[in-house]
């Protein structure tokens, strides 16, 4: 399993190398350039990420057999490959959304922090060792704390950053304690070697340390009861950052969750399945019910993002030890679909908020008359979130539920579909504002709503992606399956 160092290892971490180089260049240019030229840093970041995406997809594909690199610190397999592409894409889209955001786009630091956080996520997805995993999680989180509080002149943003920091620090401490227990029990830090040693442990010790580790992951994916940060942070953080937090960061959390559960804890499979099932039910239900009462779109999306974490957890539950069923593949597919969909939703909110300065639902009244194109994007994004065909969100939900049904967790699937009706209700509520209601003052509807070029580019890309995922889903699903199968 372990491979001695050779130059192909560098190829395997090519995306990470490129990210570091890009971050360095952007940082240096930020220092060198005059402030008015700094918007170009955004385009530089986008182009750099696109190049990294293409190079990763073509050059650094993993070999057919999964390998452990650098003394077992990293694992080179299709799962990490798939997730790294997802993160690079998410970061590029987020950059496009941030470019014309007055408080973000003119600051080189923003792009650097985003890149470093993406670097951390890449490492999270490929970490094969507890130490690497912890470092990767921190590399991801620390820039995100700063990004959430990036607008220092805005109290809400500062509050978001600080809250996120406190929650993150606390849960990461608990998780680290779990890691140290695992090491203490087994004397191993490598996830794949851990499995063999942990199998001999008594169940209470195993589950106890698993529980501690789960605290950290639940925070990352915003599962109940570690979700309290999400609404405040999403509301306060700059909208592009909130979009990034709810998609890429969540996907990274799930990548880690899947790998740790399956690589290190196969021995406790039935026990943690029950635990995760419980987590899934609570997360979906709480997220959806609380979302019903929201009047602020960003808070609504925060609760919806909690609920979606619940749906994804259904897929995690529905795994079997052989790994050849739908469970893991459906999780990967769901995360891809959710990334596209939620980025589109946050992108539309960012576009609208930039012009109108409000994220309250009331401000969205009559949007379909004010800007039919933006309304259409919101329609696609929110219908996909609610799981309506022919959009990616529908297929993703169906796969997750199918995985549960296939693995005989039918009651979980039933709770899932019932929850999706609640979800539908509040997504429809927002669409009601966009399409059905009129502004009290009809002149409001005449005001122009410009969509600048980066926004337009990103939104078009995302909408095409959502529809592709929902109609031509075969290759994507095949891809997810390959990725999921490489976990074992």
């Amino acid at each position, binding site marked *: 399993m372990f491979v001695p160092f050779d130059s192909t290892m560098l190829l395997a971490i090519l995306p990470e190398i490129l990210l570091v180089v890009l971050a360095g260049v952007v940082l240096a240019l930020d220092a060198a350039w005059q402030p008015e030229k700094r918007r170009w840093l955004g385009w530089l970041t986008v182009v750099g990420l696109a190049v990294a995406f293409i190079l990763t997809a073509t050059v650094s594909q993993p070999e057919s057999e999964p390998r452990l690199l650098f003394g077992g610190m990293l694992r080179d397999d299709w799962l990490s490959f798939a997730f790294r592409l997802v993160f690079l894409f998410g970061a590029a889209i987020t950059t496009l959304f941030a470019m014309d955001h007055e408080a973000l786009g003119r600051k080189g630091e923003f792009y650097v922090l985003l890149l470093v956080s993406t670097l951390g996520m890449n490492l999270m997805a490929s970490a094969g060792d507890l130490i690497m995993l912890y470092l990767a999680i921190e590399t991801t989180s620390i820039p995100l704390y700063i990004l959430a509080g990036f607008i220092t002149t805005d109290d809400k943003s500062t509050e978001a950053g600080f809250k996120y920091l406190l929650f993150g620090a606390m849960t990461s401490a608990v998780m680290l304690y779990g890691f140290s227990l695992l090491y203490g029990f087994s004397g191993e830090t490598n996830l794949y070697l851990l499995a063999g040693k942990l199998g001999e442990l008594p169940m209470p010790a195993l589950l106890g340390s698993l529980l501690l580790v789960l605290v950290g992951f639940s925070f990352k994916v915003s599962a109940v009861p570690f979700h309290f940060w999400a609404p405040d942070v999403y509301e306060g953080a700059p909208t592009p950052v909130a979009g990034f937090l709810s998609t890429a960061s969540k996907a990274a959390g799930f990548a880690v969750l899947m790998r740790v559960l399956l690589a290190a804890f196969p021995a406790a499979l039935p026990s943690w399945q029950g635990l995760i099932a419980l987590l899934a039910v609570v997360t979906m239900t709480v997220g959806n019910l609380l979302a019903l009462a929201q009047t602020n779109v960003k808070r609504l999306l925060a609760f919806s993002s909690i609920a979606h974490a619940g749906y994804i957890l259904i897929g995690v539950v529905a795994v079997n030890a052989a790994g050849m069923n739908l469970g893991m593949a459906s999780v990967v597919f769901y995360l891809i679909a959710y990334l596209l969909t939620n980025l589109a939703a946050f992108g539309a909110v960012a576009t609208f908020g930039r012009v109108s300065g409000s994220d309250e639902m009331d401000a969205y009244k009559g949007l379909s008359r004010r800007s039919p194109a933006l309304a259409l994007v919101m329609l696609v994004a929110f219908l996909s979130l609610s799981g309506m065909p022919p959009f990616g969100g529908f297929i993703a939900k169906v796969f997750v539920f199918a995985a549960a*049904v296939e693995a005989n967790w039918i009651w979980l699937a039933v709770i899932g579909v019932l929850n999706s009706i609640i979800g*539908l*209700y509040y997504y429809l509520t927002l669409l009601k504002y966009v*399409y059905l209601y009129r502004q009290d003052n009809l002149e409001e509807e005449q005001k122009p709503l410009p969509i600048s070029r980066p926004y337009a580019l990103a939104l078009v890309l995302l909408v095409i992606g959502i529809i592709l995922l929902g109609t031509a889903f075969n290759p994507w699903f095949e891809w997810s399956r390959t990725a999921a199968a490489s976990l074992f």
Partner: protein
Amino acid sequence: MDFGALLLTLVTFAPLLGAAALLLVKPEQKNALRWVALITALVTFGISLGLLAIFNPADAIRIDLPWLSVAGWNVHYHLALDGLSILLVLLTTLLTPLAILSTWTSVEDRVRQFMAFFLMLETGMLGVFLAQDLFLFYIFWEFTLVPMYFLIGIWGGERRIYAAVKFFLYTMAGSVLMLVALLWLGTQYNTFSLPELIAQRANIPPQAQTWLFLAFALAFAIKVPMWPLHTWLPDAHVEAPTAGSVILAGVLLKMGTYGFLRFNLTLFPQASWEFSPWMALLAIIGILYGALVSYAQTDAKKLVAYSSVSHLGFVMLGLFALNQQGIQGALLQMINHGLSTGALFLMVGMLYERRHTRALDAFGGLWKVIPVFGTLLLIVSLSSVGLPGLNGFIGEFTILLGAAGSDALGNAWNQIVTALGVSFIPMRSAGGLWFAGFAALGVIFAAAYLLQMYQKICLGALKAENQNLKDLSWREIITLLPLLVLIFWIGLYPKPFIDLIAPAINQMLGY
């Protein structure tokens, strides 16, 4: 790919292409938008006539291509046109252009979006009737919801938003359990293809059959709608714009009854047999309840809406008679209801356009000022009542015959009688007659409420504000004409229609 298969794909997606073409027209050019939509709908109708021309009742026109196959998942792009679906497809493609024609002057706001949603809706409906893959079927089934939501929500009446949300949530709530059920079937038997599942239906354990039947039935019963799940219907109908009501009553409700016919009866025959008396009971309650509530209405549109509950009760009764006559009658009655109720909604819409009210009290004596309208309304009402010689009679009569001779219903009746231990209840051998008898009361009620409506609108004293009403325009007459022709045709010479559907029904019942 052979010609028929190509036509199947074309007929399904032609409206969607038309909807895309609308995006090329500027929103201000309202007439151009209307023409594009109308031509698209007419072309679709033409294609469906082409399908009819090459249709052979004994054999289905089919297209079956793999769509997704991984890990024991086999989703196919599988459409088929057979005797069960052909009339419904034709009904859909016929009603859509007529409905578009009816909006010519009544929809002025956001014409482009209206037409786009309307054509998307048509694709969804055709897909539902044609899909032979459960997964594909579900996609189309859900796909119809969104356009209808917006048609009601944007262009509807005063309480449109409430009605739209209610419509959406009701239908969605029903269909999610169906999703779980069909996922179970798909993962258990590694296929979503309906013919393949039917071939394996003997392997479905009885208890699973019961649950699956209920999960599918809930989705379809809400759509039909069966009593007591009908409460979304009056709201949706009353608030929807005329064209929306026509399609809602004419086609969307048939998706429910068609679902029962296509999936419940074929996939779960044992469960269908067991549930048939209960379904028939609910159907009869629906027939009588719908009729009585109709009688009490003062709003013409609401009256027609509740009459749908009653009429679809007949369809359900026919289906769950589980014999050849019953199902034939039910299928024919689906078409009849689409024609008659579609026409009724169109005419109520025309009245509303003239007077901006639908209250029955506001009218009276219209016969004198607008005789053409009066004549046509009489014909349509009588067709809905089920007057011999018009289409409604053929359908309802066949259904009643089917119910009276039904083994499933008769058996159930006998069991009840035996269980009660009463020997003096007559006609133990033909228990289905009791079901038919109660249902027949519905026909009498129908005459009462529809003729009452006609009387209040067209007869009696003329009110001053109605003096200057204009009679129907040529466009309006053209809109109604195809429906009237079919009303008479089916009423007087139903054989060609029955010939189209009978082989498929016989095959389904295993004759």
